[in-house]
Every structure is written in structure tokens, then in C-alpha cells.
């Protein structure tokens, strides 16, 4: 039986559902020092004086570090391939504080009470500076957030710290102004998406200790162990050879843990004291001092001819990276590169952006990574175009959508080898009953039911950059152990990659044991982000299995005394095609452990020149209260083309989960600050995420294309699934009450105000 396209149980499933101690905090040594941070009360300030004397007197306090105790060389916390596009703009502790919560001091002690007491006793005198809080006014503001001389940008991303500019670019294809000026129908609108928290249930956490050889061991809930090794070396100023990073089970990441939010603090404590140390972020700290989605304001101009063919798209994005530039230069690119190419008849486009520093918490990576923001803007603009033309928003997509075989100028000129977007649209339409329900129905009880649509794409890894390596070896009795550097963070890649290996090696999934990730032992992988695991690491598995099969065949040919061309493997045995003479894999494997000099193992790496896009069509049915403007989600249909589905359960649940997160973003998630830059929404009380009562019914289906460059035809699925809810729900609201919501989230107040303004 094939191992692909099956609902295989996750290898760690039973351990997780029975509550086994497998997460970072569960496995930490009991004698770890408790590490906590003193956060800045000001959005922008300089430390004039800091007195730690009284705090050091608290019994049980082991060390207190301030900016005077840490290296003065800047680095980035972004988990990206070197040379990172994100600027080197951080210190472990800095004299200048750039947002409320920015670390002022690190305190480590024997227990939490002592540490809390010491935190209270640290006396700081601040020189309070004017903060820059409006990202629309940040560029060339008189206040410079990173005036320091040793600020550094490693990559040509158009950054200029003297202008509060983290990145800037403009690309144009064809003459977009000319093309749009010739169009019958033009839409020009600005859309605003807010910063959102990932809210993985396990907050940021790390413990560190020194091993037998005096090396720094860092066990962390991270998506990017190999990048963390480099980041720690940069931050502490020690050789990478002195660091080992281990990833246990992770309680969710969604991109948050693609930034080394928590690692540097216990690491420097352990390095200075020689003692084990652990930091566990409270939920509040996870909200106030972490790495949320970039807030963006996106201006879209589109032009269509009288039939509704979209001929030109012009997108400009202003992105708010906050106090530091983690993922600033890269997230913004996706707002155009993953939204414009969906429209296959576009003759000209322009995409420009600026990414600016402000005095709020640094943004980072969150599932969707800029594509989500761009999707809301461009899909909303297309919906507004359809409305203006009095055309069905499904119809306008049907006549404009990109098709398999097309070259996509707005997607790095890649050719689209696999695309079932048309089938996704047809299926979604049938599932939700679009033709019956569009645009809306008055329920007669003060409520209106209406439907809305959006479509989206993402990538599968970062082309030419992401690198995955896999090692597989044959053990006694012929079972395989596979080492991967990709990080399973609940996504199930330890299982889905084993399915790919089992398919390649004609064996059962149970016959493949998987281990990852320990930077000392695992083969290199950039990590689990950018929707890379199934496609990039999956391809590395295929390549490694092919190499291993060759080695097994070579061993078989030696044992069976024939040329290797005459040898075949069927999973159980190695046999001669000419005589049928065979040796079981078990005997071969056991034999290889005695007097053998041919290692039955293989390691291969893979990197892709292309990043084939998966697609989703999302349709929402909502119920709007005409009295209050309240929007309830009734039904959400998502139809996905992720190429071949590797694990049917995991793909479905990833989709349902991504849609639920997208619903939160659409309807209520919003990081709010006071006018002084203090975060208001710093708990689950104020920052509400969807509960099981809020998501309506989420229904998912797959319409698979076959991606010729993917492992068994697979593309990615992790991120693309979060993008459609905001524009689809906004569209449903418009179709119900003729209000265009252009700023997320779609709250009752905004809908109510819109209903009363436009009347």
C-alpha cells in the first residue's frame, strides 16, 4: 500500500494526547536559574543611570546584567539564511530603549520570588525621548530610532537607518500607468491590516547549560535551530563551534519561533555563570515583547477593460517593522509577489514598498508572511471592482485567474507547472451553494445572510536559498533511521517526511524512525518556515532515498555476485532480476554489521530554483445583525490545491487551523497601543482569539494538481491556508450590507458606522 495520500497517525500523537513530558520546560534540569527581564516603561528612552546594587543583595540572586555587561556588536534575531536580509540592529541589552518592554536588564536567580524582588529593586534613571508611533510619519522623521554607528545592513534591501528605513524597493513590469489609464474600470483604494499575535499555546521558552566539554547547550522551542546557533554566536561573541542547539517537541510556532525571541537571555547567563538557566515567557511577555505580524497599509490601483479583464495592477505597501527589523525587508515582498500573479491577464504591474522603524515592539514572521496582508488588499480591491461593474465576484476571478502553463512575470518569471485554481473555485462554489446564496438573503429577523469570496497563493520554500539535508541509514534487521534538520512544531513533518521515505523505500512508515533536531547531529536544514518543509525537505528525502537504494543495491550485487544493473529492491529483499536469487534486507543489514566496509547510509541536500505556489479558494457565509452591525461566521469553505496530499489528516487539520487563525485576524485580532506606546491588548482577555464557538463550521476540500518538481507531486500547505478569511469575510459583509471594510479587524462598530454613513 502506498504511504502517500494516507491519514497516517502522527508518530508523536499518543505521547502528546496522553500528556507525556516532552516539551522544553518538562525536560529542563531542576536546578536551572530562573531568568527574567526588566522591560522598559517608555517607548523611547536612554538609560542615564542604572543601579543594581540593592537588587544583587536579594538572597538567591545569581547575576544581573545590564547594557554594560554585553558585547557591543549588533545582530538580528531573525532566523534567516546568512547574510540575513534583516539588518543587524540589536544588542542583547542596549542603552537606548526602543519600545515599551524592550529589555533593560537580565536577572537570574534561584527562584522566581527572588528574581521578582530583584526586578523591583533595580533603579533606573531614564532620559525619556520622543517616540515615533505613527508608521505613516516614520520615514524621515526628525527622531531617528537607530542612530547608532554600528547599525548594519548586510544585504542590498534599500535600508537607511538615518531615515528610519528598514527596506525599500520598486519593481515595474510594462507601463502600468499607461495601461491603467486605458482601462474602462479603475479602482484605487487603501487597505490597512493590523499587527497580529501568533498566540501559539506554548509561549517562548529556552533553557541552557554547559556540557561536559564546556560548550553551551541550548534547548529551545524554536523553528530554526541552525539559525539560532549562528544568532547566539553573533550575540554572545563566541565561536559557533561552542554552541549546540536542540529542539524538543514544540507547542506551536506559526512563525513566532522563526525569531530567536528568548534564546539569548538564558544563553548569556549560562555563559557568564556556568550554571543552567531557563526563561519561560509569561503570556503577557509573549504578547508585549515578541515578534507579531507586520502592520501594513497597502494602496492598490487596478484597471480592467469593459469585460472585466484586469489589465494593470499597481501596489504600494508601507510596512511597520517596529523597533527592530526582524523579517522587515522580506515579509513586505510577499504582499505584492503573492497577490498580483493570481491575475493571469495582467499586462503591466508595479510593486513598491517602504518598511519603516517605529517605537512599538518589533514585528516578525507570522504564517502567511506578508502574503496575508497583500491578499486582503488585492482581493478586496478585486471585489470592489466586481461590485462597481455589478459583476459576480466569482465570475471576475474565473475570467482573470492564472492558469496552469502560464509564465508569471509578477512571480519572479516562474512558470506555473501545477495549478488547480479553476477547479478549487468550482468546487468551493458548489460546496457553499454560491449561486443560491449570492449576494445575500434577508432572514426577516433583523439579520442578513450573505456570502463572500477570495483566492490566494503562497510559495513552497525560498527558491535558491532554502536548503534541506537528510541522512538515512540502515540498521539491524533492516529498519531505517532518518535524521532531519527540519523542525516539527506540531505540523507533523516527522511523520509526513517518514511517509515520503517509506514510499521511496517500499516499506511501512513504522520502519522509519525519525530524529530531529540537534545541531551537533542533524544534517543542515534552514528550518521550518516559508512553507518549505514538505517541498524542500521532502525533495531532500526523495534524493537521499535514491542514493541509499544505490548503496543497498551495490551491497546486494556484491553478495549475489552480479552487476549492480541486475539488482532490484522490493522493500523486503534485494534480488537479481535475471535469476530471482535474493537476499532479505534483514540479512543484508545484519551482515553489514560484521566485517563490512561499505556504510549503508546516505546524506543528500536539496535546494530548489523554483517555489511552486499552492492555491486556496475561500468562501464565507456570514450573518449580519442589521441593528448592531455584528458579524457572525456561519460557514467557511476552503478548497486547497497543495499538489499531491502527503497526509490527508494533517493537511486537513492544517487547513482548518489556518482558516481559524485567519478568522481571528478578520474579526477581532488587533494589537492596540495607547498614545504613549503602551500595549493595551496584552492578555488573552483583551486579545481574543477564536474559541470553538466563534469559527462556525469550517469545511475543507482538496483539488490536487500534480507539481512535477515536488516530492510525489506535492507543494506546500502550511501558510497559504491563513490568507483568505479576511477578504472573503469583508466581501460577504459588502454583499450583505454594502459596506466596504478596508481596515481590519471587521468589528461590529465599523460595520454599523459604515451602514449609517453610506445611507
Amino acid at each position: 500500500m502506498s504511504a502517500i495520500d494516507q491519514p497516517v497517525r502522527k508518530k508523536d500523537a499518543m505521547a502528546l494526547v496522553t500528556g507525556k513530558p516532552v516539551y522544553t520546560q518538562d525536560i529542563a534540569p531542576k536546578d536551572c536559574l530562573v531568568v527574567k527581564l526588566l522591560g522598559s516603561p517608555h517607548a523611547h528612552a536612554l538609560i542615564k543611570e542604572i543601579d543594581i546594587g540593592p537588587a544583587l543583595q536579594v538572597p538567591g540572586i545569581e547575576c544581573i546584567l545590564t547594557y554594560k555587561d554585553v558585547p557591543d556588536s549588533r545582530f538580528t534575531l531573525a532566523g534567516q539564511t546568512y547574510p540575513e536580509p534583516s539588518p543587524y540592529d540589536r544588542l542583547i541589552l542596549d542603552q537606548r530603549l526602543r519600545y515599551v518592554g524592550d529589555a533593560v536588564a537580565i536577572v537570574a536567580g534561584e527562584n522566581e520570588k527572588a528574581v521578582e524582588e530583584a526586578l523591583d529593586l533595580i533603579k533606573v534613571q531614564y532620559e525619556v525621548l520622543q517616540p515615533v508611533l505613527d508608521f505613516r510619519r516614520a520615514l524621515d522623521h526628525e527622531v531617528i530610532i537607530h542612530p547608532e554607528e554600528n547599525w548594519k545592513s548586510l544585504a542590498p534591501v534599500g535600508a537607511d537607518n538615518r531615515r528610519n528605513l528598514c527596506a525599500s524597493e520598486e519593481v515595474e513590469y510594462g507601463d502600468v500607468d499607461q495601461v491603467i489609464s486605458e482601462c474602462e474600470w479603475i479602482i484605487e483604494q487603501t487597505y490597512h491590516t493590523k499587527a497580529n499575535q501568533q498566540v501559539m499555546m506554548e509561549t517562548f521558552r529556552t533553557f541552557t547549560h554547559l556540557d561536559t566539554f564546556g560548550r553551551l547547550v541550548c534547548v529551545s522551542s524554536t523553528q530554526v535551530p541552525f539559525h539560532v546557533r549562528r544568532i547566539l554566536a553573533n550575540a554572545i561573541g563566541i565561536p559557533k563551534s561552542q554552541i549546540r542547539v536542540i529542539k524538543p517537541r514544540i507547542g506551536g510556532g506559526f512563525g513566532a519561533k522563526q525569531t530567536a525571541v528568548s534564546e539569548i537571555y538564558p544563553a548569556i547567563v549560562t555563559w557568564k555563570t556556568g550554571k543552567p538557566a531557563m526563561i519561560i515567557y509569561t503570556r503577557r511577555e509573549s504578547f508585549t515583547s515578541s515578534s507579531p505580524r507586520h502592520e501594513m497599509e497597502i494602496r492598490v490601483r487596478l484597471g480592467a477593460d469593459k469585460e472585466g479583464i484586469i489589465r494593470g495592477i499597481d501596489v504600494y505597501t508601507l510596512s511597520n517593522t517596529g523597533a527592530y527589523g526582524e523579517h522587515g525587508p522580506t515579509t513586505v515582498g510577499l504582499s505584492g509577489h503573492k497577490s498580483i500573479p493570481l491575475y493571469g491577464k495582467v499586462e503591466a504591474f508595479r510593486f513598491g514598498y517602504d518598511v519603516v522603524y517605529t517605537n512599538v515592539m518589533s514585528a516578525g514572521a507570522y504564517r502567511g508572511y506578508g502574503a496575508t496582508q497583500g491578499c486582503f488588499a488585492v482581493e478586496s480591491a478585486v471585489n470592489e471592482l466586481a461590485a462597481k461593474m455589478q459583476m459576480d465576484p466569482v465570475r471576475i476571478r474565473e475570467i482573470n485567474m492564472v492558469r496552469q502553463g502560464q509564465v508569471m512575470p509578477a512571480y519572479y518569471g516562474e512558470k506555473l507547472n501545477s495549478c488547480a485554481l479553476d477547479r478549487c473555485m468550482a468546487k468551493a462554489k458548489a460546496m457553499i451553494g454560491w449561486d443560491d446564496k449570492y449576494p445575500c438573503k434577508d432572514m426577516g429577523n433583523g439579520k442578513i445572510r450573505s456570502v463572500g469570496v477570495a483566492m490566494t497563493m503562497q510559495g513552497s520554500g525560498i527558491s535558491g536559498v532554502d536548503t534541506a539535508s537528510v541522512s538515512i541509514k540502515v540498521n539491524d534487521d533492516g529498519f531505517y533511521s532518518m535524521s532531519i534538520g527540519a523542525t516539527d512544531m506540531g505540523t507533523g513533518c516527522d511523520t509526513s517526511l517518514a511517509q515520503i521515505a517509506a514510499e521511496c523505500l517500499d516499506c511501512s512508515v513504522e520502519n522509519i524512525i525519525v530524529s530531529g533536531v540537534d545541531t551537533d547531529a542533524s544534517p543542515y536544514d534552514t528550518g521550518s518556515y516559508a512553507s518549505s518543509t514538505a517541498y524542500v525537505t521532502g525533495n531532500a528525502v526523495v534524493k537521499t532515498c535514491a542514493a541509499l537504494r544505490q548503496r543497498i543495491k551495490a551491497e546486494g550485487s556484491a553478495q549475489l555476485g552480479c552487476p549492480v544493473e541486475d539488482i532490484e529492491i522490493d522493500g523486503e529483499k534485494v534480488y537479481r532480476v535475471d535469476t530471482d536469487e535474493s537476499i532479505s534486507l534483514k540479512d543484508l543489514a545484519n551482515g553489514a554489521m560484521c566485517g563490512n566496509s561499505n556504510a549503508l547510509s546516505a546524506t543528500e541536500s536539496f535546494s530548489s530554483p523554483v517555489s511552486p505556489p499552492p492555491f486556496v479558494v475561500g468562501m464565507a457565509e456570514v450573518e449580519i445583525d442589521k441593528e448592531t452591525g455584528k458579524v457572525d461566521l456561519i460557514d467557511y469553505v476552503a478548497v486547497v490545491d497543495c499538489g499531491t496530499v502527503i497526509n490527508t489528516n494533517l493537511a486537513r487539520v492544517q487547513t482548518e487551523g489556518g482558516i481559524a487563525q485567519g478568522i481571528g485576524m478578520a474579526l477581532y485580532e488587533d494589537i492596540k497601543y495607547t498614545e504613549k506606546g503602551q500595549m493595551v491588548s496584552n492578555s488573552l482577555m483583551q486579545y481574543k482569539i477564536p474559541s470553538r464557538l466563534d469559527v462556525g463550521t469550517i469545511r475543507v476540500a482538496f483539488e490536487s494538481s500534480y507539481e512535477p518538481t515536488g516530492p510525489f507531486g506535492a507543494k506546500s500547505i502550511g501558510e497559504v491556508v491563513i490568507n483568505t478569511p479576511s477578504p472573503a469575510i469583508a466581501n460577504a459583509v459588502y454583499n450583505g450590507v454594502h459596506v466596504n471594510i478596508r481596515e481590519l479587524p471587521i468589528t461590529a462598530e465599523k460595520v454599523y458606522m459604515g451602514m449609517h454613513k453610506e445611507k
Partner: protein
Amino acid sequence: MIINIWLNGRQLTREIEADLLLIDFLRNNGCYSVKRGCETSNCGLCSVLLEDKPVLSCSTLAARADGKHVYTLEGLQPQAEEFGSFMADQGAEQCGFCSPGLVISVLAMEKELNNPSDEEIKEYLSGSLCRCSGYMSQLRAIKLYLDRKGAQEYERN
């Protein structure tokens, strides 16, 4: 102060600080299945059974459990495995960090509600947040599990 707790069926006597939270008491005593996801009683990750009723151990003082029975998944392994295998078959645990709290609540719900509707299930479990799954797979697992339990009951009678 000194407290006596029946933890997972075994009696424990411990000297504790009066303000010690039950969640910390439990984790200090090896019950690592109990997770913390917030400080505001919003997530349900820390759910345990106190005298057979689900409580949030993050907002319960350990002292309140003095003389009482507390169960965590460490003491409910067969039950966790039974329901958990339905979760596993749906892929309803992704990161799994919310799973122990959910399993506790489902075991309690099973005792309290007879033949619950989808809406009643969602209502009963609304305090258990999950950021990974979107909840649908959990609902599928719960319904299949309750159906099977119901069928077994029926056969027995």
C-alpha cells in the same frame, strides 16, 4: 502550611506556601501534563479534576485541594489513551500543547452530559482554546468517541 492531597490516587503530604497555585504544586510533583497557557484564566490548558470536577489549576490554590482528590492525565492514562486514540486518528493534536487540558475536560463532559449535541459540546468545551487545529478535528474525534462509548454501553445493557 501542610496539606494532604490525594494525587492520582496516592496520598501526598507536603509543606507548601499558602499562596502556591495548584498548577505549580502539580508540576513540582511530577505532573508535567498540566500546562500553563495564560495568566488570566482564559485558555483551559491547566485543567485538572478536583473531586471529579474540572477546575483551572492556574487559578486554584493548592491549599484548596487539601484533603481532596486531584487527577491529572498522569493518573488517567488508560482513559487518555482511549479518547486520545480518536484524537490521533483525526490528527486532532497538532502541537499537542492544549491536548491534556482538553482531554481532562472531555472526560469530565462525558460524565456530565448525556448524548450532547454539537452545540452542547462546543459550549461545554468553550474554555479550552486551541490555536493549531481550528477545532473541527477535535469535534470529529469527540463525536466518534462518544458514539463508540454509547454503542458499548448499549451492548452491555
